[in-house]
């Protein structure tokens, strides 16, 4: 699979989902797309066939508002039929605006920030206790880092030396009220996590090759959990959405949809060449 082209393919699906549903968190979806693309298509051992087993990798989307990106990836992986995406956020649908484990492929419900890291720590501890060789992945947002519970998990992950755990911060520098540095300073994440006993890798989180390399490096680390600080662009992929806090959860107009779709298609084609 051409991962780079696929990221733009997935963004088209996300744009479709949100435009149709008239709701969603497009900015964070687009910043996290490359991370989910690489995890599901290159790094993690999670398939519709093995999903019912404990003996496979595990994933928690702690920044649950980026669920549309997860829907796009899971659908492409065959966890549910494409027509299910037509029901996202519609009356009575299980495909709601945050992860819900009634949906095939989703393990844990999220939506309230600051839960996923500690949930993932429980999964990693279970793996250690049972001497299973699965790995656990969790993706957080950077605004989410203001939640105190994140740092309870940071402590426990370092304390228990969970080298089967790899966390990712989608470091797009924007949250609903503005930049993270304006709302609550989140600089120096590398130092913060290193102090808590984590192996830290800082990468361009919209570069699929760099991400893949970082996840491979994490697999080799012993005696420490890994934190990948994925430096991303909110709204990445569509020129007028990039780096705009206003696109946190704005729904595109018909014109914006067409323009965004055209840009993403062109980028997908270019990546395929």
């Amino acid at each position, binding site marked *: 699979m051409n991962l780079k082209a696929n990221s733009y393919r997935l963004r088209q699906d996300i744009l479709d989902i949100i435009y149709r549903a008239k709701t969603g968190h497009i900015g964070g979806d687009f910043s996290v797309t490359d991370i989910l693309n690489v995890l599901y298509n290159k790094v993690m051992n999670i398939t519709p066939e093995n999903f019912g087993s404990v003996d496979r990798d595990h994933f928690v989307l702690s920044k649950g508002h980026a669920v549309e990106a997860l829907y796009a990836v899971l659908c492409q992986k065959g966890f549910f039929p494409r027509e299910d995406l037509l029901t996202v956020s519609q009356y009575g649908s299980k495909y709601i605006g945050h992860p819900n484990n009634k949906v095939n492929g989703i393990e*844990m419900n999220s939506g309230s920030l600051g839960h996923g890291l500690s949930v993932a720590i429980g*999964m990693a501890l279970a793996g250690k*206790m049972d001497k299973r060789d699965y790995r656990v992945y969790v993706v957080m947002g950077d605004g989410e880092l203001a939640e105190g519970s994140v740092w309870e*998990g940071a402590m*426990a992950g370092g304390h228990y030396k969970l080298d089967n755990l790899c966390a990712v911060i989608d470091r797009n520098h924007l949250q609903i009220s503005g930049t993270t540095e304006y709302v609550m300073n989140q600089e120096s994440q590398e130092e913060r996590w290193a102090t808590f006993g984590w192996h830290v890798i800082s990468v361009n989180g919209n570069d699929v090759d760099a991400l893949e390399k970082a996840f491979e490096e994490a697999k080799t680390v012993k005696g420490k959990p890994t934190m990948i600080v994925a430096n991303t662009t909110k709204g990445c992929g569509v020129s007028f959405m990039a780096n705009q806090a206003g696109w946190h959860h704005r729904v595109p107009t018909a014109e914006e949809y067409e323009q965004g779709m055209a840009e993403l298609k062109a980028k997908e084609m270019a990546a395929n060449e």
Partner: protein
Amino acid sequence: MNKIANKQVICEVLMEKAKEDKDVVVLCSDSRGSSSLTPYADTYPEQFVEVGIAEQSLVSISAGLARCGKKPYAASPACFLSTRSMEQAKVDCAYSHMNVKLIGVSGGISYGALGMTHHSATDIADMASIPGMRVYLPSDRFQTRKLMEALYEDTDPAYVRVGRNAVEDVYTEDNCPFEMDKATVLGEGTDVAIIACGEMVKPAVDAMEMLKKEGISAGVLDMYCVKPLDTAAVIKAAEKAKAVIVIEEHTRIGGLGSMVAQVLAENCPRKMRSLGLPDAPVIAGKSQEVFDYYHLNADGIVAAAHELLK
């Protein structure tokens, strides 16, 4: 007088289960001593997780363990477990439907003189209002054992509250009738039905005997299963009686009294009194001193019965 606290019985049961089942895991938040779980932690260190003073991760980590096949029991003082980690109980346990058993120890006003920070006078309301979360307050050590054995067998989340100190026995080792999610009928009365949970069951039984001596026919329901409430038992007891008294170690807002009142109003209206703690920080004192101050004792129940039957 019995010297074994209900929380010690929980430790005994968990040690028995852990010996047979490597998936049993106990988690504490620097609370192994207060939870009487030190023997467990010492005997089964591989099946014990210490998270430090961090109730939020205590509950989230438990949920993650459950997701990967473990049977976690998160034990922490009820005051912190029911409020500091309430959202983790709601989202990671109940909403995600994980097999996590939350064990709230030293509940109610067990820590009498330590102030409102250490009282869990709202835990029934807090936990019972979460969809999918069950709430149990066993009355004595024999029932606590039966309850823990039953909870081990199921895979749904639940919150269990026990007190700090040993409480007088209600049952005996040989005579402790128990059916999961069914109130235990400790007596049937045609004048007054007393419905109690947790440490208030014993004074309810004492009050029943006192009332009988006065010629007043009283019955008692041990409603250890606060949620799911045994509504059939409430209706049956109320239909027989002229009045209903509910007593609980909990604020009168949103606890067993509120839940019973709802059932009565909808199905079988009866005069009733809901005896509980005030909507205010409670007075300092040992448990019994606090109970006596608020008339949460056999005399208080008898007085309420007299008033209702006037």
